[in-house]
C-alpha cells in the first residue's frame, strides 16, 4: 500500500475490505447466491488489499470478480424476481453475457480490467434492482418494507451499482486525464459504497434469520 495515503484512507480501505465479514457470518445458514456473492466478494477484497499491500498488480482479479459478481447477482435476481416462464430465457441471456464478457476481455487483455464491460454489467445490476423494487411494490409481502430482505438487497446493490457504474464508465478516460481523481473516486466513493452495501446485505441476512416479518394479508 502506498505510504502517502492518510490514516483515514487506510482505515477506509481496511473497513471496506472487512465489511463483507458480518454479511458472510449473518448469511452462512442461507447458502444462497447472494451469500456466495458476499463470500467471494470478501475473498476478492482481501486478496485485492493483500496484493495492494505487496504492490503486486491486481487488475486481472477485477475481471474475474466482475464475472463472479455477475453470475451471483444474476442467479439471485432471476430466482427472486423473474417469472417462472421467463427464467429459462433469463439464464440463457446470462450465459450469453458471460460468454461475451469472457471473449471480449480475452481479446482486449486478461491482465487489464475491462472497465467498459464492467460498466455494462453494473448497468444490468441497476436494471435488476429496479425490477426487484417493482416486484416488492407489486407483491407487498411485508407491512414494513424495511423488514423485507429483498428490498434491503435491492437498495444495497442499487446504490452500490449506481455509484460504481459512472466510475467504471469513465475509468479509461480518467485514468489518463486525471489519475488522481480516479484514485480518489475509488477510495472515497467506491469504498464507502462497498461498506454500505455489505452492511445492508448483512442486515438483510439478519432479517431473514429472525424471520420476524408480518404478511399484509
Amino acid at each position, binding site marked *: 500500500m502506498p505510504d502517502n495515503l492518510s490514516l483515514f484512507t487506510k482505515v477506509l480501505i481496511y473497513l471496506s475490505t472487512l465489511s463483507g465479514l458480518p454479511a458472510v457470518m449473518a448469511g452462512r445458514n442461507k447458502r444462497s447466491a447472494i451469500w456466495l456473492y458476499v463470500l467471494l466478494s470478501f475473498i476478492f477484497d482481501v486478496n485485492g488489499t493483500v496484493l495492494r499491500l505487496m504492490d503486486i498488480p491486481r487488475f486481472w482479479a477485477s475481471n474475474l470478480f466482475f464475472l463472479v459478481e455477475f453470475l451471483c447477482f444474476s442467479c439471485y435476481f432471476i430466482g427472486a424476481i423473474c417469472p417462472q416462464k421467463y427464467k429459462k430465457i433469463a439464464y440463457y441471456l446470462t450465459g450469453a453475457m458471460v460468454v461475451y464478457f469472457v471473449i471480449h476481455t480475452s481479446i482486449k487483455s486478461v491482465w487489464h480490467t475491462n472497465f467498459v464491460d464492467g460498466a455494462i454489467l453494473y448497468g444490468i445490476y441497476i436494471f435488476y434492482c429496479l425490477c426487484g423494487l417493482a416486484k*416488492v411494490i407489486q407483491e407487498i409481502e411485508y*407491512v414494513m418494507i424495511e423488514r423485507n430482505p429483498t428490498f434491503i438487497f435491492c437498495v444495497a446493490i442499487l446504490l452500490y451499482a449506481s455509484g460504481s457504474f459512472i466510475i467504471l464508465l469513465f475509468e479509461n478516460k480518467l485514468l489518463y486525464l486525471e489519475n488522481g481523481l480516479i484514485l480518489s473516486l475509488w477510495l472515497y*466513493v467506491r469504498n464507502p459504497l462497498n461498506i454500505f452495501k455489505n452492511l445492508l446485505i448483512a442486515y438483510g441476512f439478519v432479517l431473514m434469520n429472525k424471520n420476524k416479518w408480518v404478511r399484509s394479508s
Partner: protein
Amino acid sequence: MGSLVITAIAVMLLLSVGIVFFVVLYQRRVIKHQEDIRSINERKQIELIQASIRGEEEERMRIASELHDDVGATLSSVRLFLHAARRSSDAEILDQSRDLLDDSIRKVRNISHKLQPALLQQLGLQASLESFAAMLSKTGNITIEYSCPVPLPRLNDNVELSVYRILQELTSNILKHAHASSITIETLLLPAGLRTVIVHDGEGLTETSYKELTYKKGAIGLKNIVNRLKSVNASISFDMQGDAYRIIIETPLSEKRL
C-alpha cells in the same frame, strides 16, 4: 471532465436514493389504502350484524306487543265472558266467547305464519309466492301478479326462505316508499341458478341509491336483505325496464341447494 464525472455520480446516487424513497412511500400509501378498505369493510360488517340484531329485536318486540295487546287482551275478554257465563249460563255470552277464542286462534296462527310461513315449508317457494301475491292483491290497494313460466322444484330450505324473505322485504318497501300501483314478480329457474325479477311502476331504487342506503346507518330492512343475500351467495341488481323499475335477484344453486 472530472467535475462532470463527480456530478454524474452524484446524480446517479441521488436518483437511486429517490427511487428507494419513492418505493418506501408508495408501499406505505398502498398499505394505508388497504388498511382503509379493510376498516371500511369491517365497519360495514359490524353495521350489518347490528342491523340483523336490531331487526331480530324489533321482530321480537312486534310479536311481544301483538301477543300482549291483541291476543292477551282477547283472551282476557274471553275469561271475563266465561266468568259471566258461569253465573248466568247465557248462550249468547258463550257464543261471544267462542268467537273471541276463534279470533285468538286466528291471530296466533297469523303470528306463527309470519314467523315461519307454513306454506313455504309444506309446498315450497312457488306456492308461497302465489299465496303471498294473492293475499296482497286482496287488499285492493295494489295489483300484484306472480308468474313462474317453468314450475319450480323444491329448493334448499335456506334458499327458499331467504328468497321469500327478501321478496317480502322488497315488496313491503315498494308498498311503503315507491307508491306503486302494480308489482310483477317472476321466478325463473336457469342453469346458473334461480332468477327472481320484481318489476313495479313506482319510484324505485337505483343501483347507486341502494348501495348508498346499505352503507348508511339505519335502513335495517335493506341491511337484512344484504345479510340474506350473503347467506345464499346471491346478488341483487337494479335497472329500468321502460318506465318501470326492475329488481333482479340472482341466486346460484349448487347441487346441495337443489
